[in-house]
């Protein structure tokens, strides 16, 4: 079964602030706040694409918490979920 990769939406600009981070979506022109440090760390990991299971391990989050986090970030279009065919290194 193919795994999933998480990738930061290239249309998203994310900036760290004292209270978390500010996100700006260049497609929708929406500005919003990300307060969770875990979410910020996930967004950083996903900047160049990360395998879902590896990301969860890196964050040390429970499966339930991690899934909630991914769902919330996908809903805000911060993260894109891509099917990982596993042939990324077959060039």
């Amino acid at each position, binding site marked *: 079964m193919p795994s999933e990769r998480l990738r930061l939406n290239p249309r998203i600009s994310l*900036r*760290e*602030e*004292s*209270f978390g981070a*500010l996100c*700006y979506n*260049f497609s929708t022109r929406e*500005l919003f*706040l990300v307060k969770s440090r875990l979410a910020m760390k996930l967004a950083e990991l996903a900047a160049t694409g990360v395998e879902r299971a590896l990301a969860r391990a890196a964050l040390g989050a429970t499966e339930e918490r991690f899934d909630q986090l991914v769902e919330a970030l996908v809903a805000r279009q911060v993260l894109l979920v891509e099917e990982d065919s596993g042939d990324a290194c077959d060039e």
Partner: protein
Amino acid sequence: MNDSLASALRAGLAAPICLTWELTYGCNLSCRHCLSDSGPKAPGELDTGEALAFIDSFAEMGVFYVNIGGGEPMMRKDFFTILENAVARRVGVKFSTNGTFLDAAASRRLAGMDYVDVQVSIDGHDQATNDEIRGQGSFDRAVAALGNLAAAGFENPKISVVATRHNVAHLDDLEALARRFGATLRVTRLRPSGRGAQSYSDLRPTPEGNRSLFAWLSERPQVLTGDSFFHLSPLGDPLPGLNMCGAGRVVCLVDPVGDVYACPFTIHPDFRAGNIRQQPFSEIWRGSRLFSGLRAEPGPTGCSSCSAYAACQGGCMAAKFHTGAALDDPDPECVLGRSGGSSYTVVSIRPRRAAVAVD
């Protein structure tokens, strides 16, 4: 907006969400309400190299987008060079133009660019209403520009309207004009800054006009407002947006000679935080005493003790300043009438010529 976000934003950010950058004071029009008193180009405006270095600095700070204005920014020969550099650095651009130079070729070039919004200024639903404020022929040129953008396939331009007592009754017509060109309507507040100081008493909406304007906007969340009508919030539910004064907190203005001011409506020595030729922009943003003061919570004086303060935040700092009010006084268009109705004194001066930085 929830309270925690509001207080976080009021306390200031690591970088502006956006900054307004007046590229030039040069303008081919002389609109009666021009907030920057534009006309002739100012001596010592930033050259191309300085402009590109400035883009680098705010890209490094993570500024999301820049509102480019003037003057008429398209009068600069390096206008597209500046735009293309900003976009290449992933800094979004929203620029305001009177449309004169938005010909077919310029429109095609813009249509091929990412991260760019175009705001064409029109201040009346017809030629007579618009041209009385913006000058003869300006309505036709702006409409032609919108036609050029549409023909070039530029998606969703904005028609930017400054609300006046002469056009608030015609917002439906302006909305129809926007629809005709696949544009979004943007309506913003008239401030008594620049030449707006002299025309404020003639152009500002009446109290009844402000009430109908607020009701009209409340029914149309799709109409953009530049977050400029929070002084009317006690009239009902707040309009979409941050609904707070962002001066020195989330926005600022950089003028053509590199002076940094708290907001687009405070081009005055009292609100000058520094100059980017003399100090890095990041230092000015983070360390200016002026901006630190603006980020402090207001004391329990003046209108902050009013029951409506949570809704209107005391209104627009610039509107108060330019009408001679103290900064903790009510907004001159206070909907509760606490500003003393229409009795105000315009004190705005023309500081720009005196404040030009040394090269």
